[in-house]
């Protein structure tokens, strides 16, 4: 159980790994917005190149990124089939007309763009966030980014602290679950056979001690934190103060520029499009 790793962080030295995490979060969000701004073939081609460029810059193995797309392959397949079979278009654009199926060129076009959009969505978020950012960095970044909400009385620091502690304790609790299950198995508990309901029932004797110990841990941790003078986010400093560097701005403005470019292409109607 020692090998448990949270998230899918892939350690590497790359310009994207080194970007300021706050900037990365913003860039990822902007990238997602861009995928929805794209409307024609040219803009999708640009989007795909941007996604490829970010993979190359992040030095992630292409197979790893491709694996990230796998879980949504079914969704991609279903949506593209729906697009192919249910899109209607101009009568002169009919490609196949057989039995109850009528496939228009528009349908194929829409389906292809949909696939590109989905793939870019996954690639963009995974390259900028999940693969190149540790969960803990992400938590810190979110605390910083949600800073304006503090003014509205939202306990941003407390949420971030809770996230941090959760991340710290997940491996411990996983370990403990394993121990309890082994102990129960040694006394004849059966977790792997029987109906689903029976198996769920067999887990109750695992969950109860797990909860008891989680509460005990929580109490001990609270006391330990108090002893280390923890008194909420007020007056707290940080060891690692993050600075936004020139390269972070380059990345940010790059994506903004890209989005503006897409909007310009859309309004000028440049780029091949069928519909």
């Amino acid at each position, binding site marked *: 159980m020692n090998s448990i790793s949270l998230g899918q962080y892939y350690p590497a030295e790359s310009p994207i790994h080194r970007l300021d995490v706050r900037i990365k979060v913003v860039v990822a969000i902007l990238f997602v917005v861009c995928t929805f701004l794209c409307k024609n073939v040219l803009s999708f081609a640009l989007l795909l190149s941007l996604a490829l460029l970010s993979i190359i810059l992040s030095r992630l193995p292409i197979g790893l990124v491709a694996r990230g797309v796998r879980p949504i392959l079914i969704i991609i397949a279903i949506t593209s089939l729906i697009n192919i079979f249910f899109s209607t278009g101009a009568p002169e654009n009919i490609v196949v007309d057989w039995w109850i199926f009528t496939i228009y060129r528009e349908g194929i076009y829409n389906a292809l763009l949909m696939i590109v959009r989905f793939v870019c969505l996954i690639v963009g978020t995974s390259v900028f966030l999940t693969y190149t950012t540790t969960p803990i960095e992400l938590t810190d970044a979110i605390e910083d980014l949600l800073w304006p909400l503090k003014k509205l009385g939202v306990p941003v620091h407390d949420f971030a602290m809770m996230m941090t502690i959760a991340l710290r304790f997940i*491996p*411990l609790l996983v370990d403990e679950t394993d121990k309890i299950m082994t102990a129960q198995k040694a006394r004849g508990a059966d977790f792997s056979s029987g109906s689903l309901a029976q198996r769920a029932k067999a887990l109750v004797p695992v969950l109860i001690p797990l909860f008891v110990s989680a509460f005990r841990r929580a109490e*001990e941790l609270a006391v330990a934190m108090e002893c280390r003078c923890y008194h909420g986010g007020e007056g707290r400093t940080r*060891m690692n103060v993050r600075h936004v560097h020139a390269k972070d701005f380059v990345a940010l403005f790059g994506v903004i520029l890209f989005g503006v470019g897409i909007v310009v292409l859309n309004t000028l109607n440049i780029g091949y499009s069928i519909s």
Partner: protein
Amino acid sequence: MGEPFISVKNLSYAYEEDDGRKIQVLKNLSIDIMRGDFLAVLGHNGSGKSTLARILNMILFADSGKVVIDGKEIIPNEISDDEIIELRKKIGMVFQNPDNQLVATIVEDDVAFGPENLGIPSGEIRERVDNALAELGMSEYAKHEPHRLSGGQKQRVAIAGILAMLPECIIFDESTAMLDPKGRQEVLSAIEKINREKGITVIMITHYMDEAARADRVVVLDDGDLIFDGKPEEVFSHEKELISMGLDVPQCTSLIYKLREAGFKLEGRCLSAKECAELLFGELKNN
């Protein structure tokens, strides 16, 4: 000597069981602890030793009696949160379970937790964290995840976390109880080093006699009463009483004690295997 760093007078503390019974944990306890002391507090489970630690750290407040830390009297309900934080800065505490006192997912972030809470400027935190980790020989693990470390290493990280707050006193509440023998030795040497080299007052709560033997002064609690207070060799000479309290005496001390009872004349203190060997060697040479 001057003023004691911690002064406890006629301290009593009781808690209520679920069925309403009052359990008296500490009875009229008085003890003075000087700056730079290396004090071991011995007692079996429920002897009140952990309660004492919690009162000194203001997690619990005494029912009656007077507690003065560094010239500041702790009056329950009157002391402000800021004053509590000010005092906790001076008295750090290391607990039993290393897993339940580490907050962050990276070792150096955890060590930084205390100083961050104190609002220290970031450059200085960096310095303190690096120093504390170096002090405990954990520098190479600075970027590691705590759950991949051994028990002894985790406990050293916890100590580094306290050390980075630059306390004047550290209380170890059975900090070695959950460790394997190797981890225990690591942590004990760290504790000794902190006391001897940095002059930090150490209060070590334990039920291991051999650990207590390494301190300069041993206090024995039994059911909330202070039974013995003195140098380890003085305290351990009361073997019968200690055993009747459910405490062990270090094996070597016990051996010498039994030999003495059997009529051998063995003079001198015996708290470690080395001293024991020397005593036995001297005796054999004389015969």
